[in-house]
């Protein structure tokens, strides 16, 4: 039996405009792909003959690979262009780069960009679907969707579930998209970390802000860790990596504050011994690698749905 779904968005820029129903449609689609994958039905025909461009203007491994795998599982031809190899490094504007890709008959552009709002801009410049693979500190919608998908696999529903996001929230697009997505699905979100990286003003987004680890973790159904950097951007925000770990690093003792059965998540790349104790990252509580696998099927769902919307086709799913 094949299901059919209605979907009318050709772009995925941000989770913000999506209704809960729309998010659930993405998950229905992803679930169908996941079942097919588990039945060893790896290749789907839906993007056969289409060209997907991965325009990665900022370094990425996991996200880029997951999009490449997702597109090829949908039978698309994929081209990956990275920052240094693009004409942007020769002074071409993003508008011209994108218009050229359209002229080369690309069907979908997936973009990672260091500037917040760049995919919003791109979607106004080109007609074809634009999928945001992460822009600055703004949005990383596919990561948030795969995180929510992973949580739903575990809990069935997120209504009333307490999720704590811990780390550098200020510069994190993953945190922002998760705050929006998880709340749309009924979860209660706490953000935690040093005051300089977790400003109180985030409360305007509906979250609880905590600068103390124990109350932030106690009773949480899941904790989502973010990578801590101490590079140029955050150089003045906290004293040192060691200081961070001593106050906010997740170790066994602190993980015991979580609700029994709680899960530990991380979008990667992880820094073992910094934000997470190495043993914890590999423990049964950790779903870090499930997140990566789910990243394939959620991105297959996005590519399929947006392509169908652009071509005004009914969405078909694998049997």
């Amino acid at each position, binding site marked *: 039996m094949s299901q059919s779904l209605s979907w009318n968005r050709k772009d995925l820029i941000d989770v913000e405009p999506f209704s809960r129903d729309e998010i659930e449609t993405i998950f229905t689609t992803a679930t169908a792909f996941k079942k097919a994958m588990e039945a060893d039905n790896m290749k789907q025909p839906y993007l056969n003959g289409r060209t997907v461009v991965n325009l990665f203007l900022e370094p990425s491994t996991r996200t880029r690979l997951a999009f490449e795998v997702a597109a090829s599982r949908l039978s698309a031809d994929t081209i990956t262009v990275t920052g240094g190899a693009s004409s942007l490094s020769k002074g071409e504007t993003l508008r011209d780069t994108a218009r050229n890709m359209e002229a080369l008959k690309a069907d979908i552009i997936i973009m990672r960009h260091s500037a*917040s709002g760049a995919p919003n801009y791109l979607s106004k410049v080109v007609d074809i679907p634009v999928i945001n693979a992460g822009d600055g500190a703004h949005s990383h919608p596919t990561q948030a969707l795969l995180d929510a998908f992973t949580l739903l696999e575990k809990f069935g529903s997120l209504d009333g579930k307490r999720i704590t996001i811990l780390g550098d929230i200020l510069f994190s697009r993953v945190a922002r998209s998760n705050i929006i997505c998880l709340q749309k699905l009924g979860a209660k979100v706490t953000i935690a970390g040093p005051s300089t990286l977790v400003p109180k003003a985030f409360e*305007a987004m509906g979250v609880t802000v905590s600068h103390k680890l124990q109350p932030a973790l106690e009773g949480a159904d899941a904790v989502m860790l973010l990578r801590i950097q101490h590079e140029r951007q955050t150089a003045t925000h906290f004293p040192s990596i060691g200081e961070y770990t001593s106050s906010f690093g997740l170790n066994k003792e602190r993980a015991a504050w979580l609700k029994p059965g709680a899960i530990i998540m991380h979008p990667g790349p992880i820094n073992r011994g910094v934000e997470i104790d190495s043993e914890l990252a590999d423990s049964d509580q950790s779903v870090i690698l499930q997140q990566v696998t789910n990243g394939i099927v959620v991105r297959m769902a996005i590519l399929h749905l947006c392509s169908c919307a652009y071509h005004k086709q009914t969405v078909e799913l694998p049997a």
Partner: protein
Amino acid sequence: MSHILWIKNGRVIDPANQRDAVGDIFAVEGKIVDSISDTQKADATLVDAAGLVVAPGLVDIHVHFRDPGQTHKEDIRSGTEAAAAGGFTSVVCMPNTSPVCDNAGTIQRIMDKVEREAVVHVYPTGCLTIKMKGEQLAPTGQLKKAGVIAMTDDGACVQSNEIMRRAVEYAKMFDLPIMDHCQDASLTEGAVMNEGEWSLRLGLQGWPKAAEDIIVARNVILAELTGAHIHMQHISSATSVDILRRAIDRGATVSGEASPHHIEFTDADLRDYDTVFKMNPPLRTDADRESLIEGLIDGTLACIATDHAPHSPTEKDREFDAAPFGTSALANPLASSRPTLYHGKRLRLSEVRALLTHKGAEICKLDAGTLSTGAPADICLFDPDEEWTVDANKFFSKSRNCPWHGKILKGVVKSTYVDGQQVFDGQSITA
């Protein structure tokens, strides 16, 4: 042959002289006169201004004309044409040209071009420091001889308190006001918009109000130390308004200005990453906006200045982080400042006029902004009731980066006169 201008039956609003009544304005040889003889009337260029407001030409003490060096953005001709079409007859140009105005030669070059090409009065400013680096004082005396009317490192606020102290102390000797773009650079590295809820939502790097407040406070302290007049440009923060208000109450020699965009828009307008809303200082919150309006009403902020900052369309057509700061603002601030200030019943029309005419002129000691006897016959004819849709593509400016583009405003400039000669007729530049 002497040139005689007779503007008849308009509603004459001359805030500096508390005049607001229907009447006539006369000018002979480019100067306002009280009356003209019957013989002169027969020879005069007669303008029927019935139904129009006849007011001093507007004065803008803060524009960027990019000339020399960045004339793809604007030049003296296009900038002054844009000014004339917006009802301006006197503008004060910022010195961040290429090269910057830290030497008399560059000022002379500007003055020569103004002489040849400008359609309104242009007053240059000189840099406070060499190359606007904030390290070594610029030759203030020579700059004054060359024609500058104020000193400023606009856009590159002097960070060293010692250099700023000496710069203002030195400029005072030449009776030149100091205009300062108040920005503590250490707090704004990489910042592109107001720090607050919207910067968090948009993931754009925040620019705290404190960056402005700290320098405003410093400047108040230095004005009190030295007695120099320090004028704070484009105030955007409620706290800065408060600091200024207290300082002015104490008698400190400080003043401030507000820009039309800061009293009209807020950081929430950046929600679509539209680069026309990217400016320095950034658009703030509604509470700040309200404080600026209060400051204009109670006189804490002496005047409105546009900070006209033109950029070429290509430069603004970028990712938000990569686009330059600035907004094209000369098209009609009289109309664009009216929704909040006048139609919101906050100020009378004559009071809005004052903010755009003699108040700014007084800060820079310009002979402008009034219809006093003997003043230059710089006049703006304005229909206060006509509506128009702002179309940036029709600007005389080379720039299109205008946040009012597409908005319907009330109030149209019908004619602009400089020294008694018409330079704009409501449609075209006539000079």
